[in-house]
């Protein structure tokens, strides 16, 4: 039941909602993507993007361009927009905005730990970290030998500290433990974000519940598919699924025992929201599943803008922007590799 947000939301959130809706109208359209897909070189892409809101970030980049440069500069724009919104936000919106970046923080922690395990230079690893997930003591992650040290030396003072309770062990860090740590942290983060949104109530709780439930379900499917043929046991796999979402708990029980993509399909087709996604795929195929999930996610994110006076628009905008950057990355790779016929394999139009 909504709580008369229309009367009080604009006092603290009106300005930023207007800002984020303005940013939303700056997202690339299908016409922009069609122009970009016809580019012959990365310099052509740069020329087209200079005419968009990415202009100031790309115009001074020297040729020859690299695909990672385009992605880096587009990400920089997202970071600037986010930081502007964060510094203008008051509670509880500021906490909500911080929650959006915890996923990137987890990715950065795992990147540093994995790279250190592989004897890589910390500076090199820091350059590869996502800017939205940076925190002050991130460089000291390199000194930790196990998860207990990781927590005690570095992460206890970060927002990820509460998520570590489930995965603190004294076992040395190796590839499997790191993977389990990544997924356990992400599971704890999603559940915590879900509880926070439920506490906010109103339209925010309703819209964010739907979006986060979809995220949890998609994670469950990806974990299942990626763990097929690996040493991850069924019990370990089950432990990585979040405890909310449409698939919780019966779908998770069925997914935990799946041993091929067709069994996963059989489980997911029982759920009406996911049946159209899997009906597009042919039997035994998993290549187009990512694109199908992204398309569904974009549809739900765009719908969140149809309602006012809730925080879901901020989450939706950040995710739509990340999708746009993924699209640009894919188009750039296809152009750089002279594979323009494959460009529509992974581009998801937003409008």
């Amino acid at each position: 039941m909504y709580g008369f947000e229309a009367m009080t939301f604009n006092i603290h959130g009106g300005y930023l909602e207007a800002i984020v809706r303005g940013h939303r109208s700056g997202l690339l359209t299908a016409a922009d993507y069609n122009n970009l897909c016809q580019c012959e070189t990365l310099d052509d892409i740069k020329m087209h993007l200079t005419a968009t809101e990415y202009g100031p970030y790309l115009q001074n980049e020297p040729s020859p361009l690299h695909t990672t440069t385009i992605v880096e500069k587009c990400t920089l724009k997202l970071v600037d927009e986010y930081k502007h919104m964060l510094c203008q936000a008051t509670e509880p919106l500021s906490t909500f905005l911080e929650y959006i970046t915890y996923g990137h923080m987890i990715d950065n922690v795992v990147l540093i730990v994995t790279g250190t395990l592989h004897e890589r230079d910390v500076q090199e690893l820091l350059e590869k970290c996502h800017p939205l997930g940076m925190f002050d003591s991130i460089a000291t992650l390199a000194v930790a030998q196990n998860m207990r040290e990781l927590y005690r030396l570095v992460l206890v003072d970060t927002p990820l500290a509460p998520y570590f309770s489930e995965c603190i062990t004294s076992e040395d860090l190796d590839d499997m433990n790191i993977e389990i740590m990544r997924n356990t942290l992400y599971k704890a983060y999603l559940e915590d974000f879900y509880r926070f949104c439920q506490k906010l109530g109103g339209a925010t709780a309703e819209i964010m519940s739907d979006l986060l439930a979809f995220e949890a379900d998609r994670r469950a499917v990806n974990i299942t598919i990626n763990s097929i043929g690996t040493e991850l046991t069924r019990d370990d796999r089950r432990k990585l699924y979040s405890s909310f979402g449409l698939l919780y708990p019966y779908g998770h029980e069925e997914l935990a025992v799946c041993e091929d993509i067709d069994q996963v399909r059989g489980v997911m087709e029982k759920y009406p929201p996911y049946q159209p996604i899997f009906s597009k795929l042919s039997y035994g195929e998993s290549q187009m599943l990512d694109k199908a999930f992204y398309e569904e996610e974009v549809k739900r994110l765009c719908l969140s803008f149809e309602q006012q006076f809730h925080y879901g628009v901020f989450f939706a905008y950040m995710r739509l922007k990340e999708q746009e950057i993924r699209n640009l990355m894919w188009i750039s790779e296809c152009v750089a590799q002279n594979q323009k016929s494959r460009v529509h394999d992974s581009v998801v139009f937003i409008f």
Partner: protein
Amino acid sequence: MLGLFIFIENMISFELFYMEHINLIQKTEFGPLEYLMDEENEGANTQPSTMEAEDKTLVFVDSLDDYLIIIQTLSSTLRQGWLELASARHSMGASRINTALLSLKHHSAATTVELDYYENAGSTTKSPQFSLCKWTSTDDENSSLKKENMEEDEQLKENPSSRDSENQESSLESSKGSETTASPHKTENHKERSKVLSVFGTLVSPKLRASQLSFETALETLVEIANVRSSILETHDTLVKDMKNTKE
């Protein structure tokens, strides 16, 4: 992967040098192939040797054609591999697939190339023969394992959808445990593949596994190219020698 790229670059530059060399031989030493037809007109005494030379020339040209086809196959396999890698990076994210995660720890190569020399029939020279030893990081050089690898790879090439089902097969093997019909070598190969891929994490996208298979196929094609080139050079040398003898 960088080593693979450098190897390919060297092979392609050598190929260009070699093709120029062939053109030069045709233009300066032997002239066009009509020279061989002129040989036919000289009389019955020279006919068998001319036919033999024609046969060898045909073999040589066929080998060149095969060689060019294999080069094209390599190019398309590499293109596919790079695109699959980009697709995996798109799916998993740039923080999970990047060069900063490659291990700098000292470790043995997962795959090695062996070079043997064998003597040709009717010739005093020895020709090199390259062979690939895949997934030998455990120092197991059992030749039956190599044969299993090659058979498995041929099956994978014939059936692209079995790239997904390969993982499923191995998972069935490991979960059932007592399956005796599945080859233990296939499971070993799968473990070695997963071990190599674990630099990017244990739970990786099927797209990354597909790109790994593409690059594996490209490596096999490279070895095949090296062997075909060795046989072309050998045929060419024989041809040149025969031509010189005929001239004398």
